[in-house]
């Protein structure tokens, strides 16, 4: 079995890039928004977990 090039005829490889970037950007934005908006009390509660 030859592993290389065996599905080379697939066109529009760039779609992988686009979909991936959109996926990442979405996950990252959601996390960013959450971390900014998350309730302060709860955040404080979590950050103290190691000290309990």
């Amino acid at each position: 079995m030859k592993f290389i090039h065996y599905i080379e005829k697939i066109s529009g490889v760039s779609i992988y890039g686009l979909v991936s970037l959109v996926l990442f950007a979405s996950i990252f934005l959601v996390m960013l928004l959450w971390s900014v908006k998350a309730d302060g009390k709860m955040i404080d509660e979590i950050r103290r977990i190691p000290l309990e």
Partner: protein
Amino acid sequence: MQSAHLLSRPSAGSQTEKFYYDNKTVKWFAYAVCVWGIVGMLAGLWAAIALYYPQINLGLPATTFGRMRPVHTNAVIFAFVGNGIFMGVYYSLQRLCKARMFSDTLSKLHFWGWQAIILTGAITLWMGKTSGKEYAELEWPLDIAIAVVWIIFGINLFGTLLKRREKHIYVAIWFYIATWVTVAMLHIVNSIELPVTLWKSYSWYAGVQDALVQWWYGHNAVAFFLTTPYLGLMYYFLPKAANRPIYSYRLSIIHFWALIFIYIWAGPHHLLYTALPDWAQSLGVVFSVMLIAPSWGGMLNGLFTLRGAWDKVKEEPVLKFLVVAITCYGMATFEGPMLSLKNVNAISHFTDWTIAHVHIGALGWNGFLTFGVLYWLVPRLWNTPLYSKKLAGTHFWIGTVGIVLYAVPLYWAGFTQSMMWKSFTESGQLRFQFLETVTHVIPMYITRSIGGALYLSGVFLMVYNLRKTILKGTFVADEAAEAAPLTQAVVTHGKPYWHRVIERRPMQMLVMSLIVVAIGGLIELIPTFLVKSNIPTISSVKPYTPLELHGRDIYVREGCYLCHSQMVRPFRDEVARYGEYSKAGEFVYDHPFQWGSKRTGPDLARVGGKYPDSWHYNHLLDPTSMSPGSIMPSYVWLFDHEIDTVHTYKMIRAMQTLGVPYPDGYAQQANGDLVAQEQRIRASLKADKIGTGPNKEIVALIAYLQRLGKDIRTAPKGQTASAGDGSALMGN
């Protein structure tokens, strides 16, 4: 939207449960850290000395640089740091989850399985059983064993998370989850290989693809084995040692997601100016530069945690170690993106600069963080204060001076090498022979080994200190704890809280992490596998002959790629020194690729036909006879050992399976061709008054070396780009 989250504390009237933390497994991992740390660093010191005193190998194959170096890297990465990760995870995870580890049996299997792999790994590497891919040298049976033990660790990790009594999953655990899932993915993808014998396999990928997969793995082994799990440890042990919460939990969340996503893309920065397609190189550079943001976010988060507590740092050796570790993390993660800029990389790559950079991370970040955690952990496990804080302080200073003495000479050596390689006379000739650039940096190598020895002596001090602590304490095998089970009570905080979908759910976190890290990998890897135009073929490039294949196996076994690259970059000096720059199409039959990452010796991509067979014969017998001042060891055993022609059939069949176009039925007649080629080489040696017996390994190795770079010389025009004016300066 209704904001709510589930209570994690005992609600009024809820019953607390009594349970015990398992300290025994933590203890065993801590012991393993100390033992393998010393073994790995001794191997490193040995290899460092071999660079200026090659006779240290005592004439034995196992102790030459080419075999000691993988033992060193594997031991310090997977044994020292690996056990350090497990020690820290098994301690912190139980506390962060308020639960004992999921299964004591799995903990035992994990511990002993990992140690067995390390021991077998060290022995097989010394024996020369290697896949020839840096940081992934272990052969296929061990690759399978690693996957099995990793799954055992995963079941134990996720099992504990599922039975936890703390609803929130603290950020340290996020890093552990990402580590587990990504290492699993990297290991499996990079280890796809075709077994030929019990201890020999060929990489499934070839040439450029193999290089891309390997450095996607190699870089992310740094990211997800040496960095993310240790960041998890930082987020747990730094607050514990400083007795204050992490500076910004919000920042830690951003740090986590940005880091795991961006890291996975950066691998191609190890292959700048190589035959890797340009788009992949550019992608690697862009993401490497972006990486500085989350890395420094994490570093600052760590250092700011100590705001107002710097007086404690003066008193407490644990904090001293942690502060220097985090600072070294910051330095290494600033330098990393700089080194991935193409103009800086053009200077640094293949030189000792890379080794210096790596050791800022290894000695500073991983080493010091491990020492800090050990100094914090051992007194707690044995319920007694540390035997001597003063001794720990001495260790800190010896270690710090050791790091400086190690790194500074190597930075100097790296820069010097590059400048000398690239130096031309006014008449346009290369100013220095390669050998001159080697002998010039030997004083730096000596100083580096003194730095390494100092660092190692600090480790001995630590082991003594910890041993004394252990002797005066009483080990707490099962530490009693109490916590309320998770309830379904809902508490509101008045603000929207919609992150709970993943924040408290380990399985979802696993899937999300996998998606995030797989994205980078897929984008990098898929196009090179799919788009043929990424690797233009060169019709004159033919598969290796059976004898050359045997020679190539010897080249891999002896770790030649650890000192010699096979990649001429398109620079004036390299083309002048070595010949036409390397093309992607030249490596299509290389399973595995042998581009290398360091030039302690010269590049060999175009060495074929440059010297007569007798030159190679004499050079491998006594390198200084051909290159006075050479630091290459003598390979005397190649003159006695014989190649095993019984395996030729299997080797050819394996290559055919991998897509190398040998004619049908060629495996049966391969040994006939092997003997014919061998006789030609022996005759040529005889013409120079050198007599050799049949089937000697040296002849196979000469056959391979004489093949390197030859095919492209007969390539039709248009299939290779012109090498420019420089090629005429050196010729071949």
